[in-house]
């Protein structure tokens, strides 16, 4: 028996279906985190890891799980979620599907700050501080230079793209890239490895998992109420403002949220590429473009991707750890190509 899809209810993302999707993804997220905690390199078995996880006895396994793997896994989750959410927001902000969290030069600024701190031989906390201040300075520079794109109240009718903003970001990024290359050339050999790892994403130093996860939660809570306005903004600023959206306010808000999210991610794990570009895209192809559904889904899905990639990067060449960004790209590029070719 076939039921004709009733004309009364065309397929649309209802609140219920969105909640079901998010809960399903959260379940996968919990499984991914659990798996990453239980699977380890070397001689640790899953059973031994499970014992370490559940027993409260003070065994070496117990401390490996609770002090190393779990914080790292949770930090990886937070970083992935932050980057995917911020990538999704950046794509809306610049109306360009090629945008990612680093489009506006944030990663460049963070790299200059962090590598500068490493060159100076400073400790982990100061490296993180360097990354954070570099990212925020880059963000400030974009805001000052691009304020006409972000804040103009009356733009010319025909200007519907944010070309200036992208150009400013790309220019800043190449400038920072040049400085980073010079730093790498000048760096003594003993620092070089750490610097390269930082630039390709390194979760081994992630000390405080609560910061990325907490920021992720906060970011999602700030963005979710803007969902309908972001959908309208996707239809162009003119029609959005005719429907009661203040484009300059909404755009500034998502710029600030995306920048802060990226800054937190960068200070936690260095520049993890790929996830911010590809997770929003892949999810768009699967669940559609409704930003109300998509942004929380990106926050959940990005975390899953980075947790899985980080687990693989830990175990595949054990005892050597691979950079998580590189692992992610190696797995992600074919997957994304498949999604791209298959079409929705």
């Amino acid at each position: 028996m076939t039921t004709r899809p009733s004309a009364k209810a065309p397929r649309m993302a209802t609140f219920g279906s969105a909640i079901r999707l998010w809960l399903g993804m959260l379940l996968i997220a919990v499984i991914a985190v659990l798996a990453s905690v239980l699977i380890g390199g070397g001689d640790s078995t899953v059973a031994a890891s499970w014992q370490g996880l559940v027993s409260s006895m003070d065994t070496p396994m117990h401390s490996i799980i609770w002090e190393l793997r779990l914080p790292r896994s949770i930090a990886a989750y937070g970083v992935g979620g932050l980057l995917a959410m911020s990538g999704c927001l950046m794509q809306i902000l610049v109306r360009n599907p090629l945008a990612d969290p680093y489009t506006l030069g944030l990663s460049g600024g963070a790299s200059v700050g962090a590598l500068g701190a490493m060159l100076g031989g400073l400790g982990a906390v100061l490296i993180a501080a360097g990354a954070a201040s570099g990212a925020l300075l880059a963000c400030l520079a974009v805001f000052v230079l691009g304020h006409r794109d972000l804040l103009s109240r009356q733009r010319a009718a025909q200007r519907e793209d944010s070309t200036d903003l992208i150009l400013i970001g790309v220019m800043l990024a190449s400038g920072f890239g040049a400085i980073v290359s010079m730093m790498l050339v000048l760096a003594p050999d003993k620092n070089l490895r750490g610097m390269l790892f930082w630039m390709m994403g390194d979760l081994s130093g992630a000390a405080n998992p609560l910061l990325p996860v907490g920021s992720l939660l906060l970011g999602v809570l700030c963005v979710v109420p803007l969902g309908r306005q972001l959908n309208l903004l996707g239809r162009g600023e003119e029609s959005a403002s005719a429907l009661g959206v203040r484009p300059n306010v909404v755009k500034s808000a998502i710029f600030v949220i995306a920048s802060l999210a990226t800054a937190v991610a960068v200070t936690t794990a260095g520049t993890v590429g790929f996830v911010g570009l590809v997770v929003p895209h892949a999810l768009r192809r699967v669940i559609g473009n409704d930003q109300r559904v998509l942004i929380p889904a990106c926050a959940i899905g990005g975390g899953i991707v980075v947790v899985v990639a980080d687990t693989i990067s830990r175990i595949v060449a054990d005892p050597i750890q691979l950079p998580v960004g590189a692992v992610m790209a190696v797995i992600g590029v074919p997957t994304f190509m498949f999604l791209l070719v298959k079409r929705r």
Partner: protein
Amino acid sequence: MSSVLATEAVSLSVRERMLVRELSMRVEPGQVWCVLGPNGAGKSTLLRALAGLREPDQGRVLLGDRDIRAYRPIELARLRGFLPQSIVDAFSLTVMEAVVAARHPRLPFWAWGDEDLEPAQRALRTFELESLAERDVTTLSGGERQRVNIAALFTQDVDVMLLDEPLSSLDLHHQMKTLHELLHTAAHDGKSVVYTVHDINLAFQHATHAVLLDGSGGALAGFKDEVITSEHLSAAFHHPIHGVTLDGERFFRAGRLNGRSP
């Protein structure tokens, strides 16, 4: 009536060029206004000023006896709707999503947005879009997209409807259909309508009032019979335009440049 849209000595200029000089007009409920004029004469600029999306260089725009700048954007969006000349979608979305999104100003801040689909479905039926409801807007033809955006404007359900070239890229049937719906909603629901258009005859048949811009500041506004005359048109468009009467109905035809016909 609360939703009278009026201009008081509004002047508009773009890059030092005066397009509209001291235009005063009063759009009352039930009236349908067409805005005519040559390319670049400021039709769209005038419409955006009427919508409160552009501040006039002089004078002011009043909506219901209140300066339009005094409204919050969301309040304004419950009273007046504006159809831009073109909508470029950054991301794909379905026709239904595009139309339902126009309910935004009516919804409380925390609402999800699928609470009241009835106005959207009515608008889709009106503009013969039901079969396209699931389609991706970015894959539609230009005319279909235009109908989607007009349907979205009807879904917004506002007292004052401002449309910038609603007929562009529509086929003949849908041009007539759109104009019919605009006249119908003005006559039966007391809406007021202002639209820009290039086809003088369609405008003349489907309007109660008219604004004629000549691109150098001159702006005539009033009853269509007083504004749309062959003298005024010829002067504004810098082209000979003659009026003829066929079956008791007034038509305008432009003189050919080879000088052979009328």
